[in-house]
Structure formats: structure tokens, C-alpha cells
């Protein structure tokens, strides 16, 4: 092996990499919040009584979970303009990510809801809580507790998946890497650095989710 590593050649591109990183973080943050919200609504609809809504959400979940993310992204960015819906790359990318996470988190949260012991529902019913009150106050919090690890992983997967947005020129981290690599051909160096940044971001996210968990679920801290 006579390859001469030239990591120092990346220094001039630091700004690009940092910008890309910030874009990735921003996209991930917004997607995590909106996607989990969408997933909660989706799960509520699937657990609810409205048959039409239930099936619509079911179709949405199956459609998204059984098609490639990049195809979903291309459809939104390149396909929708044909029917007059024109989005910027940034908007299309974010929309694709939210829709994607929404579908997966719908399934994840639904699993948590279905794990609700029957006694909890009977207690809520006996106390006179309405269906909506029961869902929000009694069913949802323990359901989220139960599926929290799975949801964390899914959010990280979506963060990693945001790399695909480089294909529609969203200037996130992978876009920056591609750009730098096309200028100096230092593929090894660039992609190694970027891979490590993704790794760091994933580790950071997991820690952040743990912090949120600590404050969101105080009952798990309290044990005799």
C-alpha cells in the first residue's frame, strides 16, 4: 500500500463540512419532532374507531415501509411538480423524511398502544374518562415508555437516511462530502471523516434521547 493519506487537504473545506453537518442536524431535529408527532396521530388513528381513517393510515404505513426512501424522495421532488406541487430541495427532503419517519413510528407506537393492559382501560373507563382523555393521559405515556428504545433507533436510522437527500442537492453532510471529493479526489479521507461525523451524531442522538427519557418518564427513576 503506497497511498499517501492527506487529511490536512480537507482543512480548506471545514466550513462546507460544518455547514453540511448543521443541515443534517437541523433536518434530523425537525424530522424527529414532526415525524414522531405524525406517528402518534397515525397510531391513534389505527387504534381508533374510524374504519376509513384506520385503513387510510394502514395504507400509508404499508406504502412507505415497502418502497425505497430514495424513490419516495424522487417522487416528491421530481414527480410532484408534474401536478403543480413544486417544492425546493430542502422542503422536499424534509417532507420525505417526515413522511418516512411518520410511517415507521406509527407502527412502533401502535405496538406500544396495543401492549396497554386491559385493566388500565377499565380503570380509566370506570373513572369516567372519555376515549380521547384515556388515550392521551392513560394509554400514550406508558406506550411511549415501552417503545422508546425502538423509536430512538428509528430516529437515528432516519438521521442516517438523510444522506440520501444529497441526491436532490440538499446541502447536508453527504452532499458536502461528495462535493469535496469531486474537487480533490480524496475519497478515502473525506468519506472517512464524514462517516465518523455520522457516527458521532448517532452516539450524540442516543445520549440526547436518554436525557429526554430521564425527564419525560420520572416514574422509571423512582424505585424503592
Amino acid at each position: 500500500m503506497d497511498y499517501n493519506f492527506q487529511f490536512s487537504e480537507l482543512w480548506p473545506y471545514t466550513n462546507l463540512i460544518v455547514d453540511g453537518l448543521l443541515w443534517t442536524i437541523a433536518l434530523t431535529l425537525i424530522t424527529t419532532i414532526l415525524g414522531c408527532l405524525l406517528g402518534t396521530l397515525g397510531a391513534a388513528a389505527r387504534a381508533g374507531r374510524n374504519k376509513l381513517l384506520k385503513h387510510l393510515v394502514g395504507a400509508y404505513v404499508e406504502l412507505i415501509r415497502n418502497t425505497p426512501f430514495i424513490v419516495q424522495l424522487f417522487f416528491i421532488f421530481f414527480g410532484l411538480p408534474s401536478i403543480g406541487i413544486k417544492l425546493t430541495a430542502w422542503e422536499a427532503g424534509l417532507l420525505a423524511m417526515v413522511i418516512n419517519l411518520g410511517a415507521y413510528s406509527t407502527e412502533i407506537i401502535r405496538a406500544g398502544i396495543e401492549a396497554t393492559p386491559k385493566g388500565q382501560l377499565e380503570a380509566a373507563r370506570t373513572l369516567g374518562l372519555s376515549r380521547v382523555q384515556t388515550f392521551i393521559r392513560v394509554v400514550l405515556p406508558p406506550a411511549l415508555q415501552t417503545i422508546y428504545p425502538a423509536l430512538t433507533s428509528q430516529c437515528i436510522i432516519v438521521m442516517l437516511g438523510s444522506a440520501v437527500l444529497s441526491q436532490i442537492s440538499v446541502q447536508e453532510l453527504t452532499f458536502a462530502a461528495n462535493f469535496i471529493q469531486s474537487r480533490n479526489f480524496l475519497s478515502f479521507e473525506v468519506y472517512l471523516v464524514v462517516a465518523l461525523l455520522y457516527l458521532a451524531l448517532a452516539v450524540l442522538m442516543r445520549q440526547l434521547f436518554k436525557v429526554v427519557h430521564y425527564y419525560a418518564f420520572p416514574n422509571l427513576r423512582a424505585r424503592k
Partner: protein
Amino acid sequence: MPLVNIDNVHKYYGDNHVLKGIDLRIDAGEVVSIIGRSGSGKSTLLRCINGLETYSEGGIIVDQMEVTDDDSQIRKLSKSVGMVFQHFNLFPHLTVGQNITLAPKLVRKLSAEEAAETAREVLQKVGLQDKFDSFPGELSGGQQQRVAIARSLAMRPKVLLCDEITSALDPELVGEVLKVLETLATEGMTLILVTHEMNFARDIGDRVIFMHQGKVWESGEAKAVFANPQTPELQTFINAVL
């Protein structure tokens, strides 16, 4: 007019005829124990009284409200009928205080202060005023069940249904829960209990209902029923459990 009026109630699970024409009138302030073998229909009957189970024929009227499975009717009933379960069914993510104040705030529309005041009062009654900020997971089974009783009481029910509320407890914890029930009984709360605590049924209860094969097989004043069972089925049952 009796507080609880059960009139010729039938219930089927598919082909299985589990309640075969139950007639029962319970007045305010009565303590009624429903005893019988498992499968005799006693829990089903109890759960019909507050609409957790539907019935196929007949009628149940509680506090002048007809019991139906309609959601809004059940919400109305919840203000008159409380229920305590075998497995407590406390909300694990909420503190004791939050468990108790949840329904008074959402259903009775009490302010946070009023609800907290109520919670402290009912906790005092079950002897757990120091557990306001604890989570259910931090409490023993007996304490959890007392909180569950307090949670029901906070809704100011006129009748409290107790579905084998000591059956899931370690033997040494049964006493503290029964003591709370005894206090409630002395204070005039109407109690309908499905129970295996025969001593409690005999000593504290006013009336005992012995159910067998989906029917009220025998009933009467508590001490008399235990002292002079009229049917061989009750005789066998008493011999088996006492």
C-alpha cells in the same frame, strides 16, 4: 327506591349462559358480599353494574340511571359508581397524587387545588397521606390497593364495587386493605364486594349473596347465611373455604 336495582339480568358469552336472571336490590349504606366458586358469574355481575360488561336481557338501574354500554352514560355513572380491581390498575406513569386527581379534574371539573385537597383527604382516609408524590411502583401491593380505593373515593361515588380486591395481595397485606373497607363500611359507604374473604363477608357485611351456576342461589343476612346454609351447594362451598 334502592340504590342499585338489578332486574332479571341475563348474560350470554356466545352459547354460554353466564347470568341466568339475576334479581337484586341494594340499598344505600348496605355492605353486600357476593361469594361463590370461580365461574359462578359473580365478577361478571359486578362488572355489569357499572357497564364494564354488557348484559343481554333485563335491566340495571343505579342511582336512578340506567346502565347501558353507551359511553356518555358510563361517564355519568362514573360519578356514582366507583370500582376497585383485583390488580389495582393504578396508572404507573403518574404519582399517587396524579392518579387520584386525574378523574376529579377531567370528569368532575375540579380545579387543581380542589382536586389536590380531595386527594389529600382520601389519602388520609386510607392512611397514606405521606405517599402523595410516590409512584405506584414504589409502593407495596397493599399500599397500591389502598391508593386505588382512594382514587375511587375521590370521585365521591355512592357505591363502591370491589372485585376480589385482596386476591392478588400477599397474605400479610390483606389486613390493611380490609381495614380500610371496614372503615368505609362504618362510615356508611355502600359496598358491593366479590370476595373470598369469608370472615370479612360474615363479620362486616350486612348481606351475603351466594352465586352458583349464574344464579343467586342463596342470599340473606351475612351471619345467618354462614351459620345456616339452606342449600347443599352453599354448605359444600362454605366447608371448602372456611
